[in-house]
């Protein structure tokens, strides 16, 4: 209207009147400008106003709404038609441009969200996606509430949290009675539903809350919730589409994360299978080697084609005896290990003094330790500790035998005990080759045997430390290995002195 008035003024004052045809062109320009600037409605108004102004100002008789010459009726109507068509074409063009811009923006945001949700960490990608949507739509808050995931709310506030949680526990039960009809659509993806939560104390917030269902792998997985700012217009189709597409992207991300988890799980299973196979291999090797010696010696004794000397017969007998003992020990250790792992170990706990235990063990191992220098540093005033005496004897024997096996003859093996912050601490320190940092955990796995300094693998099934760790842990204690002062190995055990800390 303003444009039309301006044109009328312009023609009247500046040009001092104009030709009928030129004036109509100028009015058309005014209509076109309003169509481009303001869209369809204003353009129609401008067309009619231009028609009236043109009639008033340029059609004889001037300054009247009547038309003298009937021929000018045709001109006037033609003018109106051209103005209307031109303005509609221009307005169409304008709305198409606006749509294209909207779509471009949508595409950019969606691409961003797809990128964000493709990150390996689902939690972090949801947080990023929620923040992006919140910023892009300029809404009060965005929430992504998924089953089995912590709710993601950007920006977080406890009010919004309560509102969103109430809405996501919809459709049916959290809704007030009057909204039951719209609630039925809440489960469908991409459909707009106004969810009303009785938990929302802010009455106005209810009308601003939108929820889009998120599906993953064909099943409902949660919802995308958006709270508009107070006083803002309802979402347009473009925003609806954007949110539906975002919900679909989140669904895909959830699906991807599930597949990734499944892949990880199967990898874990595969590794545990590999470990079992390795264990089986180790067990079969450890069992078959002594059996091979026994069978070869027994077979030799039975052979009639050779006359064995007494010394040779003795050698075969001795091999059989030794290897049977070795098998017996191995079978015992395997049984121990499986009993403990199956949870069938029952500790017979009583309070014992640790210096008596150490004396017992060292007394029994006197022969085995004769080639080493043994130093004992166990005060006799240590508090008694609740242990299964025989099991703890087994642990200490294992550690001392280990030290004897790995440390060269003539070196020092020290057994020490003291009270520290963790309880009673026992240390067995040798001057052997020590244990490399990367092996300090694996030595406690079954069937691990370390190479000695001369690269020879020391005999034994490699079960002693695995059993020792399980026994100490059953006592509520800890066992680990560190570097001793002489660069050898130091095995340390702590046992709880506090009866409360002792698992029953």
């Amino acid at each position, binding site marked *: 209207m303003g444009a039309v008035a301006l044109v009328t003024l312009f023609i009247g004052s500046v040009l001092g009147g104009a030709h009928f045809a030129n004036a109509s062109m100028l009015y058309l320009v005014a209509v076109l400008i309003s169509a481009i600037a303001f869209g369809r409605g204003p353009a129609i108004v401008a067309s009619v106003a231009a028609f009236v102004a043109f009639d008033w100002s340029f059609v004889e008789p001037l300054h009247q709404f009547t038309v003298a010459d009937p021929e000018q009726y045709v001109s006037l109507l033609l003018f109106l038609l051209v103005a209307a068509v031109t303005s509609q074409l221009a307005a169409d063009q304008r709305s198409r441009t606006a749509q294209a811009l909207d779509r471009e923006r949508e595409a950019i945001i969606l691409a961003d969200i797809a990128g964000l949700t493709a990150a390996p960490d689902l939690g972090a990608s949801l947080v990023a996606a929620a923040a992006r949507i919140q910023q892009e739509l300029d809404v009060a808050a965005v929430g992504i509430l998924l089953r089995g995931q912590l709710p993601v709310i950007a920006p977080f506030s406890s009010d919004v949290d309560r509102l969103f949680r109430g809405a996501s526990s919809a459709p049916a039960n959290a809704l007030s009675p009057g909204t039951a009809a719209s609630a039925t659509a809440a489960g469908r993806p991409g459909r707009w539903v106004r969810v009303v939560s009785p938990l929302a104390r802010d009455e106005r917030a209810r009308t601003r809350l939108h929820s889009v269902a998120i599906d993953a792998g064909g099943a409902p997985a949660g919802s995308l919730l958006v709270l508009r700012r107070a006083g803002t217009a309802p979402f347009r189709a473009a925003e609806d589409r954007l949110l539906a597409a975002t919900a679909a992207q989140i669904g895909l991300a959830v699906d991807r994360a599930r597949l990734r988890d499944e892949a990880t799980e199967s990898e874990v299973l595969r590794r545990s299978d590999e470990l079992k196979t390795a264990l089986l291999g180790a067990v079969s090797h450890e069992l078959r080697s002594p059996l*091979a010696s026994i069978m070869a010696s027994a077979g*030799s004794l039975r*052979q009639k*084609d050779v006359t064995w000397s007494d010394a*040779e017969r003795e050698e075969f007998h001795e091999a059989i005896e030794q290897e049977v003992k070795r098998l017996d020990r191995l079978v015992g250790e395997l049984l121990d290990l499986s009993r403990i792992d199956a949870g069938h170990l029952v500790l017979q706990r009583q309070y014992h003094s640790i210096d008596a235990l150490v004396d017992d063990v060292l007394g029994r191992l006197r022969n085995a330790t004769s080639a080493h220098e043994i130093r004992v540093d166990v005060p006799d005033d240590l508090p008694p500790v609740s242990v299964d005496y025989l099991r703890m004897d087994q642990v200490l024997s294992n550690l001392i035998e280990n030290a004897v096996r790995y440390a060269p003859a003539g070196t020092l093996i020290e057994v020490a005990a003291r009270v520290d912050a963790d309880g009673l601490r026992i240390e067995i320190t040798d001057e052997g080759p020590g244990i490399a940092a990367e092996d300090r955990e694996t030595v406690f796995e079954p069937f691990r045997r370390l190479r000695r300094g001369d690269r020879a693998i020391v005999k034994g099934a490699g079960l002693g430390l695995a059993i020792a760790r399980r026994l100490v842990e059953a006592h509520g204690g800890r066992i680990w290995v560190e570097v001793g002062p002489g660069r050898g190995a130091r095995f340390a055990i702590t046992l709880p002195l506090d009866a409360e800390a002792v698992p029953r």
Partner: protein
Amino acid sequence: MSEGRARVLVVDDEPAILRTLRTNLRGHGFDVETAGNVRDALAEYDRARPDVVLLDLGLPDDDGLVLIRNIRGRAPTPILVVSARDEDRDKVSALDLGADDYLTKPFSVDELLARIRVALRHVARPETGTDAVFEAGDLRVDLGRRDVRVGARGVRLTPTEYDLLKALITHPGRVLTFSMLLRQVWGPGYSSEGHYLHVYIARLRKKLEDDPQAPRWILSEPGVGYRFRAEGP
């Protein structure tokens, strides 16, 4: 085999089995050398030049397979693997690398001695020449004339059947893995076409053996390959 007594190198990391085998093999007239790891075994091999090697695969410093490869790089000395590993793929990889035989622990000493004797016979009579006549019981193969007879009965073999039989009898007593036989008879591109081999072995047994279900000569080593038995069971 020098000066009448065959020399055996026993490689094992178990002192008990080394002692027992040393005593037993000496009692049976062999010179015995022992080694506890791959490094010592190679040194001992170069020093003593044994006629046969008994080899455990699980050695402390390296895998016994390494030793097989190293010995094969030096000489065709028969290698008998004596190992606690009993999986087919372990046997196949040892045999493919050039081991002659495979015995799983625990084993009977009588069987071990029999297999050492077979291995030593091959050393005494290496790969049969093309002009030779091969005989095992009443099976007679004239390699020069490509003529095969069982007793007085002439046996007609197709060229592939004949090549397969020839591959087997030129390594009597030795386990030939599926891929070895396939490569030798069908060519290098066929090493995984196991079904060809099974078909032809069945045909050979039908033509040669009295009872193809209980073969006298062409023995199966399940999962590993075949072995031609030159002497009675």
